[in-house]
């Protein structure tokens, strides 16, 4: 085989297309940590979340559901130290959401939205809603042995959502219906921009 034929065979093949040229470029995004693009978030430990949770429960017991919701949204758990802390935060928010009556949702959301920084607060709420939906749907899917008991609705809080009979019987379905009705109300108040922001945002709960 002549050198020329060998050469053309090598250059005419498509092998060069599969070379990952980004790996060879020291400045390319595959060679630096993308998280360095954003300012770092403080790490939140499980103890911090527990403290917040107990504070929120106290407000709930005192009947101040709006205050409880606000304090959840003002301190979003973005950079949880471990999975347990993140789950605990989600559980706390879900508890608050389940304790609020359907008729109180919209006025409460409007109040939060009108307050300074309120749009940010509803974005945080939306993040928790999506996270809650992901958790409940994977739990009801049954493939992953998650802990569906964590999402069990409070027997007192769910009665007002009994749009369909027996909703409280299946716990994950009940939790999902709460989240869905909140989702609808949040979009009503904060618009589609809120969903876009949650999808864009690099800070995840």
């Amino acid at each position: 085989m002549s050198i020329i034929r060998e050469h053309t065979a090598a250059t005419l093949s498509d092998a060069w297309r599969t070379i990952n040229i980004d790996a060879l470029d020291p400045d390319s995004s595959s060679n630096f940590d993308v998280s360095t693009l954003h300012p770092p978030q403080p790490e939140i430990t499980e103890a911090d979340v527990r403290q917040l949770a107990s504070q929120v429960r106290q407000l709930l017991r005192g009947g101040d559901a709006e205050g409880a919701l606000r304090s959840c949204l003002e301190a979003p758990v973005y950079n949880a130290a471990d999975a347990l802390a993140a789950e605990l935060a989600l559980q706390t928010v879900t508890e608050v959401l389940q304790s609020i009556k359907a008729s109180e949702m919209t006025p409460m959301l409007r109040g939060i939205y009108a307050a300074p920084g309120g749009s940010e607060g509803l974005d945080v709420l939306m993040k928790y809603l999506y996270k809650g939906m992901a958790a409940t749907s994977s739990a009801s899917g049954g493939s992953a042995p998650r802990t569906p008991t964590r999402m069990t609705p409070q027997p007192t809080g769910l009665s007002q959502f009994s749009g369909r009979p027996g909703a409280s019987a299946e716990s994950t379905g009940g939790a999902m219906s709460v989240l869905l009705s909140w989702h609808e109300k949040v979009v009503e108040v904060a618009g589609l921009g809120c969903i876009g922001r949650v999808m864009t945002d690099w800070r995840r709960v």
Partner: protein
Amino acid sequence: MAAPEVHHLFHNPIADHSFSADRRTLAIARDTTVELYAKAGNTFKLIDELKGHDKTVTSVDIAPSSGRIVSCSQDRNALVWEPSPQGYKPTLVLLRINRAATFVRWSPSETKFAVGSGDRLIAVCYFEEENDWWVSKHLKKPIRSTITTLAWHPNSVLLAAGSTDAHARVFSSFIKGVDARPEPTAWGERLPFNTVCGEYMNNSAGWIHSVSFSPSGDALAFAAHDSSITVVYPSAPEQPPKAVLTINTQLLPFMSLIWNGEAEIIAAGYDCEAFRFQGGAEGWQLTGAVETKSRPGLGDQREESALNMFKQMDLKGKAKDDTQLKTVHQNTVTMLRPFETSGASVKKFSSTGVDGRVVIWTV
């Protein structure tokens, strides 16, 4: 308010558009060509096609006084089209990039233009007399991702760039021998090439779709994919800015924005219509849509007879035809440009988008 002037050119997306200074010639980036339209009566007629790129043309700009057209494309090239009696003559620009060119704009002085690219850099191009060609210098640091948009400061030295790394940056593109030494501004005093005069991001780090300096150049606005616009007021060189104001909206993200004076911004995007923002260094707010929905002859031109209703139900299974949006643009607006200005304020602006329409709005 006068009704908008609508020109439906074709059924393809328009990547970018630019009017000549006399507003009688319109350059449109369509697919792999730049199409030139001339005003004939009340319509725009195709007069020329500038063919030179072999991939999608991403951006086009006409220099107002020289009449030169610059275009850039995903084929990694930029071409300068020189007007001549025989038509437009293309000159290739040495960009030295190995990713798509995404955005191009002439500087107000028209001696330079800047090309943004997917190669994480901006090529600032100027004409070298002795070699008789356009050469480029690269603005590289600290860009970490594709440049999506560029805007020039009125002094032709400062350049704002938006990127998919969620940062809007202000650079100096000072080139010795081409630029006169600029007056010091709030952005910086001494400005050697590639000085980073400012680096801003918004809270949720969305991609930047559009940047724009205010008419005085003393404020910078940018729109990002988190449905927000952010306005930055610098205080002094090397100092933190006086104010960075972010307005989150309930709308879909904005793709393009322009200033109307120092106290109004017009932005449009995925909601298919333009919105106004008003404010100043103390705060900004969304004040409403530019388009008036109650315009006569919009949507209700079809007769609402019983016969028509049953006909619709028979043909389409529904009484109302809801395939039309209520807005003039029927798809995302991707580019806004001032059309007619008086001083700092915009009297008319033009918009193009994915629906192939060019619309001229009276503010």
